[in-house]
């Protein structure tokens, strides 16, 4: 990996003296309201490569030895990307940005979905620059696995302010799940439009009585001819108020043991009988919701996987969610902001970056952020080689979310008393966005399976330790009672 990506983050070159104006800081800090931190985490490099695609990827692997060099061909590639951007994403396009939906701006990533943006994305897909892990017949660009090219694309697109890949529940979680388990019709119907942002998704998993013990969910779907009739109650559903569709876990076979009675359904949020009620988070804003289902009719064709296999299908989605949350990019962006702050802010009469404790912590966290990035390279390589990543693949969410917290906490320490100003306060450095990051680092620790659930998964599936006896007793009791 050459100078272009690692260790050459733009903030490093900022001369670090004096206090900068807040407005300037806000430009450079990670942006967005808290919802983006969770929902629009930058795309993981390619957690979504379905198993079937292994062979496709593998055949493009050049040489089976460690090779991370930016060889001259990569500089040629970079020039190609730049030329493409100069031609297809003009100053006029950039200036034409529609007013940003506060939920639509994320960490400096362009996520416009207006007509110009869509036209551009289609051209970029045609050229092989976006959705490289998705087959062309479903709207992707089907390119060989190459994180270096990916890094170049992301860097150049960001510099040009051009629309990149969409991220979030639909593109990052549902699409890989459909690639793995969907019917041909489902793939054709949903993937392309999801990748272009024409269909927005929310995830209907958690229920008031089914959190960590997700498989005890009770929302029911009863078969009535060619339809399932859904009744129940979902909670912590991000985006439910704006989403077009929901991918949900429902109980289709209540008489079966709890994991075997669950199915995975795609539900049109415009269906009659759906009520969405917003929930306010600790941050003060309302980004997630409760969703109530009252005799909602869902066509049988919207079942993903077979009836009763919803648990297995959802595990695949969960894996993608965990990879998404654990992806190094979020921490990298926040750390970038922290580094900038450390140069720009004064702490007791001198630039914060001169504080020896702070310097050591910054290096320590940068090291972990890099470890997370290289770990991503290793996982992608294992995926491309068709190897089972084993425990290496199970630690990503815990590592990434813990790291996200550590980085955000460093930002808070750096802000010192300035950290008590709320997001949006104009007196706050970077408009208080680091406080947002700090609070959301907690949300991320919980979303997609709490940290303690992750530890169970790592210990049981990764290290081969026995399952928790209490959990087993609970399941035995449920079977007996059920």
């Amino acid at each position, binding site marked *: *990996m*050459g*100078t272009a990506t*690692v*260790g050459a983050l733009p903030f*490093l*070159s900022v001369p*670090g003296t004096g206090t900068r104006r807040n407005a300037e800081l806000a430009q450079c800090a990670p942006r967005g309201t808290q919802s983006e931190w969770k929902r629009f985490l930058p795309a993981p490099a390619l957690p979504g490569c379905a198993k079937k695609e292994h062979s496709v990827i593998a055949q493009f692997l*050049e040489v*089976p*030895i*460690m*090779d*991370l*060099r930016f060889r001259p061909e990569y500089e040629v590639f970079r020039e190609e990307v730049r030329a493409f951007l100069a031609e297809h994403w003009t100053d006029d396009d950039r200036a034409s940005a529609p007013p940003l939906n506060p939920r639509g701006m994320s960490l400096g990533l362009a996520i416009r979905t207006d007509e110009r943006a869509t036209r551009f994305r289609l051209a970029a897909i045609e050229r092989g620059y976006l959705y490289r892990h998705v087959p062309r017949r479903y709207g992707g660009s089907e390119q060989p696995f*190459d*994180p*270096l*090219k990916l890094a170049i694309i992301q860097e150049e697109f960001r510099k040009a302010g051009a629309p990149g890949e969409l991220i979030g529940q639909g593109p990052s979680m549902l699409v890989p799940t459909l690639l793995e388990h969907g019917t041909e019709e489902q793939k054709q119907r949903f993937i392309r439009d999801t990748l272009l942002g024409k269909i927005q998704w929310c995830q209907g998993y958690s229920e008031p009585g089914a959190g960590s013990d997700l498989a005890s969910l009770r929302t029911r779907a009863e078969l009535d001819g060619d339809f399932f009739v859904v009744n129940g109650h979902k909670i912590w559903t991000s985006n439910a108020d704006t989403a077009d569709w929901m991918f949900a876990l429902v109980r289709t076979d209540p008489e079966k043991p709890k994991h075997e009675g669950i199915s995975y359904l795609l539900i049109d949020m415009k269906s009659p009988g759906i009520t969405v009620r917003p929930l306010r988070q600790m941050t003060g804003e309302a980004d997630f919701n409760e969703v109530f289902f009252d005799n909602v009719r869902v066509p049988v064709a919207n079942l993903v996987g077979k009836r009763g296999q919803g648990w297995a299908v959802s595990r695949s989605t969960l894996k993608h969610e965990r990879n998404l949350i654990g992806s190094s990019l979020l921490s990298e962006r926040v750390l970038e902001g922290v580094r900038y702050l*450390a140069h720009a802010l004064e702490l007791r009469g001198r630039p914060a*970056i001169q504080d*020896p404790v702070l*310097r*050591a912590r*910054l*290096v*320590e966290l*940068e*090291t*972990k952020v*890099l*470890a*997370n990035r*290289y*770990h991503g*390279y*290793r996982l*992608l*390589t294992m995926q*491309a*080689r068709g190897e089972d990543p084993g425990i*290496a693949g199970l*630690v990503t969410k*815990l*590592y990434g979310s*813990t790291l996200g917290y550590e980085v955000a906490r460093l930002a808070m320490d750096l802000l010192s008393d300035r950290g008590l100003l709320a997001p949006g306060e104009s007196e706050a450095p970077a408009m208080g966005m680091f406080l947002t990051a700090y609070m959301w680092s907690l949300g991320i620790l919980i979303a997609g399976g709490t940290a*303690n659930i*992750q*530890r*169970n998964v*790592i*210990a049981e599936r*990764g*290290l*081969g*330790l*026995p*399952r*928790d*006896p209490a959990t087993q007793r609970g399941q035995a009791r449920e079977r007996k009672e059920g």
Partner: protein
Amino acid sequence: MDFGLSQDQLLFQQTLRRFLTEQCPTTRVRAIMETETAHDPALWQALSELGVPGLIVPPEYGGAGLELLDLALAAEELGYACTPGPFLGHALAAVCVIEGASEEQRRSWLPAMAEGKSIGTVAWGEAGSQWDPQHWSTTFDGQGLNGQKLFVPFANVADALFVGARSADGRVGVYRVERGAPGVTITPLSVVDMTRKVQHVRFEGTPATPLEGPASGLQRAIDAGCILIAADAFGGSRRCLEMAVSYAKTREQFGQVIGAFQAVKHQLANMACELEPALSLWWYAAHAYDHIRDQAERHAAMVKAHLTDLYDRITRDATELHGGIGFTWEFDLHLWFRRAVFDRGFLGDAHYHRERAAKLAGW
């Protein structure tokens, strides 16, 4: 682009793992570390036959011509097995010559080093925890070396010492001192890690040969040292985690194996969670050493600090998880605990290397 080991590398690592499991179990480790030198010529000879001392020596000087990553994979296995002996100092001495000696010097010294017949070591540290060459005060006045070097691994075993010192005009370089040269006083020390013994060495007008290649050779050797220590720390950490997991699966209390208790599971899961990304980190640093030179020094500093901190935590956790047996001399865990102490201190502490990384970033 690919970020994984090749078949050859995996095979090499397996071979070394099997060899050390059979030939260097902890019973032999203990026997060797109880000797005065902690050097077993027969074990070194066997490792030499496997090619370990010459892995990165270019083929024209009798080595295998491989990369630092390959050498680090060996360091990982030696760390996993807790292997006693002069590997580390020898490897760094070899880097000093490969990167910092003249062609003639390379031709005259490397073949015997590649074969393991001539054992090298490095004399770098100075009083006041000075591992930064810019602060070294040992001098070479054109005739001889004067000064004291601390924490020199296997100084009493090595055939040649590669000493960091300052010339009359103030430039820092590396000087080769032959075994038995006059004016050398070696002070034996009682040390925590008995598998890698170190001594203080005083030079008084000691004849020495300046290395006549690029001055950058010294920094290259320091970077290599940081990475090899990181790999050693990873190998040892992995071994301690394996021991703790295996103990948790068999030890019963309250009528069940302790690995079924969530508190135990979570502690083990946290260890694994820290370890997995750390592997990718030192792989990258080792790879950068040969292929991404502008990142090599900073990555080396970061991995030294990170992996040795991690090694400390893992050995502590593993000992704690074993309960009373883990705290005994008879049980092997403390052997790795001691390796962790060496890895943390040798070449400078974690804070020093993080500060170096900060400076290298221009902060």
